[in-house]
């Protein structure tokens, strides 16, 4: 069937309301009588709480209640962790600290007041007595010993894990050469533009709790919060209104979400908490936080024999939802885009007196890609060959897919050389190298960095996931001919209200404006898993697609019945079922329109579709007939609706090539982009505009990590980069023009052929940027630089300081 919408640059239907400021985020929802919550948070990284005096604060006019750890310890269950690993230490992390705080920003008390100003002022009046304890912030120190954070254990090691396949020792001993490099993956703060926020409303009569929360996982959150606060799951409704960015930081179940629900139940009033930016940097999960050593063994001809990565993972003080699992995702992707016969990863994951790390855009995979790509650059340097050629030498050929890696994965499909060729062509690679050579002779420092990444998306098969890896969709055609899509995914900026409507409009042959995509309300939408891990389109979009096929199977039968023909004699095109002899006439008539023009419908009785003498019927007429149900085939349920839960058989593995060209200012160490070229292959593309947007945003966050961003705690565990005056997220002036293109290698994993693209930019770009700066500084003998690469570091290298 020719596509009218899929593959087109359809503008986001979400945008007008966002651009006009008409969208509703949690804080835009105002319920009468809402109370406001503010949190007293620890100013110390590690301390015993020896006393809390709330009396002065409680006597402040407007303050209605103050809850401390002691008040809720036996009322609200621990903050959940879904990471299941052998011998994993799981601290009993409660929603409010009781006897001890173990990171700066640890919530100690919740103050409830009639407005947010009183609540905030009253926080200052809650007197907390602390007895400071020794602090450990450095993960390697935490691994060695250092002050123990959790009294239940005698050390700070949360788990150790060795993974990988192949004979790693044999691979290293058979190699001609080995290079090693210590590599840092600094902590980052996800900084969604909208911080977290929760609004809770409890109706004591109905015993129903509704939580509006800025989350990526409304259904998973419903299940977990119900368990935490002991409300029946079907009495808890979670609604995610507009969500202003998540980047993984809202793929979580937070203490504040459970607390707000519980407080609302105690007071039988709506209660709201909107995270401040300070809280957001202190107490919303951080990302990355690995330091380790990579060793790569290879032959003189550039063939890779083996790779070993031994890493200390900085988990922070406790586990959030996926904290311990993130480093294991790094382990899965250590083969990169290459044939590496033996791979070993050794993880030592430790507690430190800092906020928990967890999933931040890429979630373990940027770390893997960075390690592998930096290692490939080191191989190229060691051999004195072009980094593109070392990569090319080790790619699996397209015919080798499904390709089994020594990390235990089966890559679905790929043409890595195709993407590299295209990117090199776009960049004019050979000429770039000549220009670079000439510039060096003139004393200019130009560097070219390449990353040929592969990532793992469409998370994922339920076998590999803690709580289901499928996604759900319901598609129905309403009596008026409007199409409703209910997706279990929870898009929050990705644009699936548009792309799912494109899929539905094409598959049903209706106008895209007749399709509405609904998500993010557990009271309306069937259970879903949510939006993360670049899964929404590949898994959730497929569920939509298959649900439509189910719906059409039913429509086929009704159409045959109404047209009094055998179903095999009908064709479906442009939204119309036609008898085959009439198909030619019906073809090319475009999309079908609703039978009931809404504005004109005068009466309560819906018109019955007229079938007399008709040789074709629109699917919307069939929907109406199915609804009126006066003349349906035998044993046919009324209505036209179908639900499907799609379980993928594998992950998908998008890939691509990013090329960054930078120039370094010899005098100041400033780094300037000259070019940025990216060829991404995310399988079949539903909407190129959305794909470009995802790639843009991802590259920008990569630029942030490569050059600017770094969460810094001092040795006392004080968060030094606690505001956006100190923590540098990239601005428009920091980013170059992106030259983007694609190759399209469909995945066999789902019928749409889509792979996912949400994280490609953050995974693929970082090594290209760092590689470019390292390459620019090659005349000074530089082989590696840790991120963020600040101008001062560059200046020191150039000037030998």
């Amino acid at each position, binding site marked *: 069937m020719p596509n009218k919408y899929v593959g087109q640059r359809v503008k986001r239907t979400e945008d007008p309301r966002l651009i006009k400021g008409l969208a509703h985020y949690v804080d835009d929802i105002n319920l009468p009588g809402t109370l406001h919550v503010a949190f007293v948070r620890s100013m110390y990284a590690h301390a015993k709480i020896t006393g809390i005096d709330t009396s002065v604060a409680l006597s402040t006019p407007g303050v209605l209640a103050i809850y401390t750890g002691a008040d809720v310890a036996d009322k609200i269950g621990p903050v959940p962790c879904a990471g299941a690993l052998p011998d994993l230490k799981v601290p009993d992390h409660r929603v409010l600290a009781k006897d001890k705080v173990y990171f700066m920003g640890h919530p100690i008390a919740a103050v409830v007041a009639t407005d947010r100003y009183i609540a905030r002022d009253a926080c200052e009046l809650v007197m907390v007595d602390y007895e400071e304890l020794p602090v450990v912030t450095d993960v390697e120190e935490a691994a060695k010993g250092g002050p123990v954070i959790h009294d239940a254990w005698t050390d700070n090691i949360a788990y150790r894990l060795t993974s990988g396949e192949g004979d790693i020792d044999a691979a290293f001993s058979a190699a001609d050469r080995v290079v090693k490099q210590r590599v840092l993956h600094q902590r980052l703060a996800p900084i969604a533009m909208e911080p977290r926020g929760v609004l809770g409303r409890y109706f004591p009569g109905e015993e129903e709790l509704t939580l509006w929360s800025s989350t990526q996982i409304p259904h998973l959150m419903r299940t977990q919060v119900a368990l935490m606060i002991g409300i029946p799951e079907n009495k808890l409704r979670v609604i995610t209104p507009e969500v202003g960015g998540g980047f993984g930081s809202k793929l979580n179940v937070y203490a504040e979400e459970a607390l707000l629900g519980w407080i609302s139940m105690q007071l039988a009033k709506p209660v709201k908490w909107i995270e401040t930016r300070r809280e957001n940097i202190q107490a919303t999960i951080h990302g990355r936080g690995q330091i380790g050593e990579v060793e790569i063994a290879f032959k003189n001809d550039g063939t890779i024999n083996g790779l070993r990565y031994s890493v200390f993972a900085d988990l922070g003080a406790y586990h959030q939802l996926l904290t311990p699992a993130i480093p294991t995702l790094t382990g899965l992707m250590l083969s990169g885009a290459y044939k590496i016969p033996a791979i070993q990863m050794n993880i030592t994951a430790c507690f430190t007196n800092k906020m928990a790390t967890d999933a931040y855009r890429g979630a373990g995979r940027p770390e893997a890609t960075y390690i592998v790509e930096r290692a490939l650059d080191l191989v190229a340097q060691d051999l004195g060959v072009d980094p593109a050629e070392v990569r090319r030498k080790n790619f699996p050929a397209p015919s080798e897919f499904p390709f089994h890696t020594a990390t235990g994965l089966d890559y679905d499909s790929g043409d890595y050389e195709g993407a590299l060729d295209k990117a090199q062509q776009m960049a004019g690679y050979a000429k770039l190298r000549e220009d670079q050579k000439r510039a060096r002779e003139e004393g200019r420092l130009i560097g070219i960095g390449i990353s040929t990444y592969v990532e793992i998306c469409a998370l994922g098969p339920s076998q590999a996931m803690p709580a289901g890896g499928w996604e759900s969709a319901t598609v129905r055609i309403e009596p008026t001919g409007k199409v409703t899509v209910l997706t279990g995914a929870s898009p929050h900026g990705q644009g699936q209200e548009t792309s799912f409507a494109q899929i539905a409009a094409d598959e049903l042959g209706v106008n895209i404006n007749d399709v509405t995509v609904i998500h993010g309300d557990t009271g309306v939408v069937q259970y879903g898993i949510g939006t993360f891990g670049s899964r929404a389109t590949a898994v959730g979009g497929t569920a939509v697609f298959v649900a439509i096929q189910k719906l059409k199977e039913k429509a086929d039968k009704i159409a045959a019945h109404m047209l009094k023909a055998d179903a095999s004699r009908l064709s479906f095109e442009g939204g119309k079922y036609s008898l085959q002899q009439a198909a030619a006439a019906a073809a090319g008539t475009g999309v079908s329109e609703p039978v009931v023009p809404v504005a004109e419908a005068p009466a309560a009785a819906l018109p019955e579709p007229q079938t007399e003498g008709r040789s074709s019927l629109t699917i919307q007429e069939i929907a109406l007939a199915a609804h009126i149900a006066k003349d349906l085939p035998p044993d046919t349920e009324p209505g036209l609706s179908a639900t499907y839960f799609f379980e993928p058989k594998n992950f998908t593995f998008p890939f691509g090539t990013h090329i960054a060209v930078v120039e370094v200012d010899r005098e100041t160490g400033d780094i300037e982009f000259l070019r940025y070229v990216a060829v991404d292959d995310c399988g079949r593309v539903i909407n190129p505009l959305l794909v470009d947007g995802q790639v843009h945003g991802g590259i920008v966050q990569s630029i942030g990590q490569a050059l600017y961003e770094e969460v810094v705690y001092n040795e006392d565990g004080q968060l030094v980069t606690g505001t956006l005056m100190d923590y540098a997220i990239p601005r428009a002036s920091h980013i170059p023009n992106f030259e983007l293109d694609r190759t399209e290698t469909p995945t066999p994993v789902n019928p749409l052929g889509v792979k996912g693209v949400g994280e490609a930019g953050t995974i693929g770009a970082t090594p290209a940027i760092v590689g470019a700066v390292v390459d620019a500084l090659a005349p000074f003998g530089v082989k590696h630089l840790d991120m963020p690469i*600040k101008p001062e570091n560059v200046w020191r290298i150039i000037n030998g300081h």
Partner: protein
Amino acid sequence: MIPAQFDYQAPATLEEAVSLLAGDPDGARVLAGGHSLIPAMKLRLAQPQLLVDIARIKSLAYIREEGDQILIGATTTHYQLESSDLLKQICPLLPACAGNIGDVQVRNKGTIGGSLAHSDPAGDWPAAALALGAELALTGPNGERAVKADSFFIDLLTTDIQPGEILREIRFKKPSGRFGHAYQKVPHPASGYAVVGVAVHLGLNADGSCSSAGVGVTGVSTKAFRAQGVESALAGVTLDDQTIAAAAARVCDNINATTDLYASGDYRRHLAEVHTRRAIKSALANAK
């Protein structure tokens, strides 16, 4: 990010503002554009009892040429200075400096007087005011007095403004003869404030030699300063790569450079020298 409780008054005249301040000399603070004070209040680093908002006093926002002087009202916004055709013609350093401040939203609200009175060690305006030898008019309960920019900036967030006084006007001698200007800035990637900012006003003789130079530096130390070593090295000298480099090398004479998370004192000193050199060259290149 909610400030502690405070009172707010928006007087219609300067006289009213002065008397409001006099009523609570310790607890009251003057609010203009609010782009330094409000963030500090939100972090509860500043907790004034009373804000006296002078941004609504219409007579305080102006850019005027009067005799050989340029007069600028304290609540003139960065954007008004950036976009002033008059200034682009007679004193282009000011629009050039203004264009480096924050972003468009900040420039639409923030004021030159607020920035100078706040004396942020990395603010942009102090550098320009020093380079141009500005004079600041302070109005208080006892009338008005004028202070040279040189002696106005005392230390970190500290100026010569006495309790009860309001910065009313900033005045410059209108540049005459042949002159060039430049503002070179290294913005902090997070805050946008100057890691180093160098403002240069260069007067030139008919033969191309330097008649006089004003060099203001911000970001480097706890307060903005005039680089007098550079100014005296330039005055009367024929400008070439050597003389410029030699002058720029003196930019941090007797200065303790700040070390922070982003840049060490050594690096700041180095950047100040490089950007002083670049600013002088740029001023020379655009001299008319």
